[in-house]
């Protein structure tokens, strides 16, 4: 799993590609979020469109990232969830807790 990082309109966009699963993907996501925070980012988006599989550890990292960024006064939002990723968040009712948007345009606009 790789995570690419880019900027748009002052927002840091993280783009994980592959599996966010225990042992590898979850660590890569944690490192990417930590790197963004250390670079001074307070508004962070995660483009989920390239995520093929997420397990409970990956979801734990998403929740931890959301809590960390929120506690620091920032905002972390997700967009473009593949249907199965959306389903697995729905099952544990995280779809209503996390900030989730349909696509990048809507996600960027949410910070304006």
């Amino acid at each position, binding site marked *: 799993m790789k995570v690419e990082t880019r900027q748009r309109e002052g927002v840091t966009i993280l783009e994980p590609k592959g599996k966010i699963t225990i042992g590898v993907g979850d660590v890569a996501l944690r490192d990417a979020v930590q790197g963004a925070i250390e670079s001074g980012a307070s508004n962070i988006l995660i483009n989920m469109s390239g995520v093929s*599989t997420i*397990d*409970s550890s990956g979801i734990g*990292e998403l*929740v931890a990232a959301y809590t960390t960024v929120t506690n620091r006064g920032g905002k972390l939002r997700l967009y473009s969830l593949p249907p*199965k990723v959306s389903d697995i968040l729905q099952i*544990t009712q995280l779809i209503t807790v996390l900030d989730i948007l349909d696509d990048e345009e809507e996600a960027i606009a949410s910070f304006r």
Partner: protein
Amino acid sequence: MGEEVAEVQLSIDSQFENIELVQAVLDASLERLEFDEDSRYWIGIAVREAVANAIKHGNRQDPEKQVGIGLRVVEDTVVIQVQDEGAGFDPTQVGNPLDPENLLKPDGRGIFYMNRFMDAIEYNFGTGGGTLVTMRKRIGSGDPRSGEEDSE
């Protein structure tokens, strides 16, 4: 049902990257049993969670300890077992991840997903240590996301 599926037995070192191997082997068996792609995906998540628990909480990532994985068909049900060499644990002590105080906890969802995606889960604890998790899914029982409704 498709061609007969031989019993599968695997043994892996307690390393997370081996979960990919387990899932690939079991997925091929489930495909021969004519589980559709969506069903295999959700059963695969349950298998991932069970093996991850065995490695992390059971064997505590001790490279000297193995995780055994088995798949067999009993009548109209696929039975998947995951055995570790750890000290055992009490699954009833894991909180409900849907409780408001647990919603934003980073852990505690794996067993919930296993229960959701399979028809039945049993835990057995050996006298010499080790936890044996037995997961059952009826063949042709449809989308595992509706696992609770599929229970018999």
